[in-house]
């Protein structure tokens, strides 16, 4: 068995709405190993996105633990959690979230700038640029380097987002309905790319989806309902 890259242990998440507390996650246990692909299925509002955010340290669990490579990380200080988000996990979202002011290349380069000072970046700028170009080539966008997000199709935007997520060489990829906004043909291409890269790099991939066909291509399928994982 490979080591677990990402793990949720008895995770609870409650949101407070005024006086009311809304339980969204109610004791979720989930582990994703290196090289493993896990599909996360469930009705809308089941808490899939919430689990993804908590697992990626974007949101803090109300109770329970998050572990990266077996080490507890949800109780670390803000800065260390941010650094782990940068290094350990890559996110891909349904709505791409590219920065409209930047070109495809700059969007990818931005990922490299996140954790270093301007001076440090200046020293590695050539390498960083070459890496970003190589990454965009890897996702098939070598002719779209200078395009703004508005000048790219949905599929191309998602490829840029994938390139960006991979730029810091994370061990885990968290994808929240990455094809939810794409037609089936484009979606297939993007999925192909995702699985390809996952295999090549031995990533842990957690894929939130409504597509049963896509789920079947994963090693494992996990279903959520009302904030718990169905057995």
């Amino acid at each position, binding site marked *: 068995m490979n080591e677990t890259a990402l793990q949720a242990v008895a995770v609870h998440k409650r949101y407070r709405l005024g006086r009311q507390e809304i339980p969204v996650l109610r004791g979720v246990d989930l582990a994703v190993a290196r090289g493993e692909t896990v599909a996360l299925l469930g009705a809308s509002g089941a808490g899939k996105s919430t689990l993804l955010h908590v697992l990626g340290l974007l949101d803090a669990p109300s109770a329970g633990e998050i572990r990266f490579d077996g080490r507890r990380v949800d109780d670390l200080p803000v800065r260390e959690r*941010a650094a782990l988000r940068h290094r350990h996990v890559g996110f891909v979202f349904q709505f791409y979230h590219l920065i409209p002011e930047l070109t495809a290349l700059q969007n990818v380069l931005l990922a490299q700038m996140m954790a270093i000072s301007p001076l440090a970046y200046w020293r590695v700028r050539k390498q960083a640029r070459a890496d970003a170009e190589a990454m965009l080539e890897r996702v098939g966008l070598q002719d779209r380097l200078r395009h703004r997000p508005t000048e790219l199709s949905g599929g191309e935007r998602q490829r840029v987002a994938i390139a960006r997520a991979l730029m810091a060489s994370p061990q885990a990829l968290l994808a929240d309905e990455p094809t939810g906004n794409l037609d089936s043909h484009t979606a297939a291409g993007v999925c192909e790319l995702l699985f390809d890269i996952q295999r090549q790099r031995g990533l842990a991939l957690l894929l939130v989806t409504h597509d049963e066909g896509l789920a079947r291509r994963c090693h494992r399928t996990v279903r959520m309902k009302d904030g718990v994982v169905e057995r």
Partner: protein
Amino acid sequence: MYRLFLALRYLLTRPINVLGMAGITISVWALVVVVSLFSGFLQVVESHVHAASADVVVGDLPAWSDWRKVEAALRDDPNVAGVAPRLLHFGILSRPGHRPPTPPLPGRSALHGGDQPFLFVQGVEPVAETEVTGFAGWLADPAIPSELRCESAPLAPAAAGPTVLVGLDRMRRDGLRRGDRVLLTTAQLRGDGKGGKTPVKVQLDLVVGGAFKTAHSGFDGNTVFVAASLLRTAMFPDQPDWAPEAAVRVRDAATLDATAERLQRAVIAVVERDGHGFGTAQTWRQRNAQFLESIAHQRGLMQLVLVIIMVVAAFLMLATLSMMVTEKVSDIGILTAMGGTPRGVASVFLACGIVITGCGVVAGLALGVVTGVYLEEVRRAVRWTTGIDLFPIDVYNLDRVPCAIEPMWLAQVAGMALAVGILVSFLPAWRAARHDPLVSLRGL
């Protein structure tokens, strides 16, 4: 790195931010130019005033004081290079048989004298006066035409009577020539024998000996020189040993204030009666403090107004930055997911403010310095195109608009602008920091 990079990209894609920058540039520019103009003007006026003054004047010497003792005490000081007695009175100069001249354009000379009839009558001893001021130079100024120039020894009595020296501009305006007869009319309070005092008219027949010219036209317009002995005989015949004022020249101007204080103590020690010392020593700066401070005060008011404008400019920047934050909060989610801390992401907007302020300050300083250096050319261009004279240099005896760009002031302006700009930038950044990054990530 991402902060600086994003801040620059955000700014470059939003030309509206130029507005915020322009506001800061303009306010910095105005602060540099206006204050440098005032500082330059103040420097020029100070130098003019100084050129027409003795370094230190010891005044308020009582009528019973002994000039010889005062002079000896003053000369005793190591920093004193020369001492001269002065008698000061007032009077009206008129030409018998001539109509009084028409007054000059109103407003032009109120500050600088010339249109009011009352004059300061300075009684000086020419030799001693030459020792303490530029008196000899004032009579030899190249601007004085030969027919108005004093030819004999200054203030030496002419065949027709005692002489008076009149400021060049007043000579010209009144149409006076060397050798003209003038009447100096003045008055004095004298004891009436019953314990009271009554004003007594005193008139002196004088001959114009020549013109003088200092750099300070206000002094020239309001002053005439006569021999000290003449004034003493006419006004104070009972006090042959008295001079109400002593003009002093110092050797080292750097220690002027300390010297004045020493002279004050020295004169109090010799002019003493019933345990009270008399006499006050004032530097030229102190004697003209009101005039000089009024300019400094105007400069201070301008500074205040312009700093307020700078704050307004900073609010303009706040408005453009706030618009940007409203538009860009949607990027906060992904930046957080990519490994930014909430504070770090918010500081992108702070960086925007700092970049705008920094560029505005640099542009404003550069523009301000260039405008300051070429202020005279700017004045001419404005006068040529619009007919408006921004600064009447001829009134002040200048050939250029004065301008003193002080590095200290540039640093202060830059510091103030940066402080205000950065302070204001914290507001949008703070708003961004409070924004929940997950809101945009949920795809809303």
